[in-house]
């Protein structure tokens, strides 16, 4: 119950943060190259106890909610689904000493920072690549898509990791 409540709170909170704060940030001419998707943090930290099918449905719901606010016609939902597809494989790859089945939320404190940064960058990279690919809907724009993916991934990952250091308390061992 506590887990569900916390997740709903974070779900709503992250959507509001994304729509009313992060999307209002004006980066000037960089606007067309960098898009910040801080709300994806919800899927990065999502509990690994929960079945991957449920995770995918949650990802769909999250993406559709963002699409509703940003008028983006389903492209965020599509990218979130792709992220949810990649995540289980990636989690199996970076398996560490403490088994992931017992992790309630996957933050910087459950893993060492290098591994977590790698995990975030890879997932965000997959997310943004899919997002921009669907948005442009053509392989001809591949160089532009790649540039946008790299820049957006770096800045979003930075924001998410710094945000986690600020917002989460280090669990006592």
């Amino acid at each position, binding site marked *: 119950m506590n887990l569900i409540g916390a997740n709903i709170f974070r779900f709503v909170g992250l959507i509001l943060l994304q729509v009313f704060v992060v999307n209002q940030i004006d980066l000037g001419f960089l606007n067309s190259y960098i898009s910040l998707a801080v709300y994806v943090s919800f899927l990065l930290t999502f509990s690994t106890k929960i079945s991957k*099918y449920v995770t995918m449905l949650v990802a769909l719901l999250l993406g559709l909610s963002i699409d509703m606010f940003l008028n983006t016609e*389903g492209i965020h939902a599509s990218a979130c*689904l792709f992220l949810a597809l990649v995540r289980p494989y990636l989690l199996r790859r970076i398996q560490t000493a403490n088994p992931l089945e017992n992790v309630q939320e996957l933050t910087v404190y459950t893993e060492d920072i290098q591994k977590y940064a790698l995990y975030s960058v890879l997932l965000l990279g997959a997310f943004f690549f899919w997002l921009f690919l669907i948005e442009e809907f053509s392989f001809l724009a591949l160089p532009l898509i790649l540039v946008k993916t790299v820049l957006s991934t770096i800045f979003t990952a930075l924001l998410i990791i710094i945000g986690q250091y600020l917002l989460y308390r280090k669990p006592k061992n």
Partner: protein
Amino acid sequence: MKNLFLFFNKIRFLSFFIVLQLFVFFLIQRNSSYQQAQILNSSAGVSGWLFQKKNSILQYFNLKKENELLANQNAQLKQEAFFNYSIVSGNLIEINNDLYTKQYLFQPAVVIQNSTNRNKNILTVDIGTTKQTKPEMGVVNSRGIVGFVRDVSDHFSTVMSLMNTDFKIPVKPLNDSCIGTLQWLPADKVNEMTVKGIPSYFKISKGDTIITQGGSGIFPQGEMVGVVTQTIPEAGSNNQVVKIKTAVDFYAVHHVFVVNNIYKAELDSVLQAVGQE
């Protein structure tokens, strides 16, 4: 047979993904084909209400700039008002009001959501069907054209911004009769647009004004679009590509007018009749 089942069991997760992805593609396709999909639309329900709340807080930050704009516009209107014209001779000037009828009605509206960082940027304004807003009405502000209405709900409408790669209208230079197509290419930056299809023999120079042509019935004729910054000859054709800077600053669009063309239905029916022949 058993192997087949094993195979399907293996790709169960992948097929789950594909089914959901197809569902999302269906949504994308349905939304982009101009039909009124109200579910994923900020003109609908909760998000519209939330954006209005946000706007009622944030509008204070723009007050100074907006006041300036409105004051300028007031001054301009005052200048154009009838009593400003002094009568030269009692015999010569006679204003015959019957010769003029109103063609365009302007409805004030406030932009409650705006984006500039995507390929297909959309604005949301705070008027809807309760104020007779209909799709394909033009949206302008005191500086120039902003976009046109796409979807309408009771109290909100979404507006396709000029900063949208699907946007295309005919425009012309102020001092010339040639017509080009105004569009926003994916390579264009915010507040920059491209006019295509103007033959090279029309001399268009930097600083020329581009205005609406009025043929589509969405905008009145002669609404400001932007100022030419550069002309490039188009490779392999007789045409030139004209780069313009828009008159409207799309980072700061706040108070707008929705233009209702009273003769739009008439114009459309005539154009349709032509098309059917």
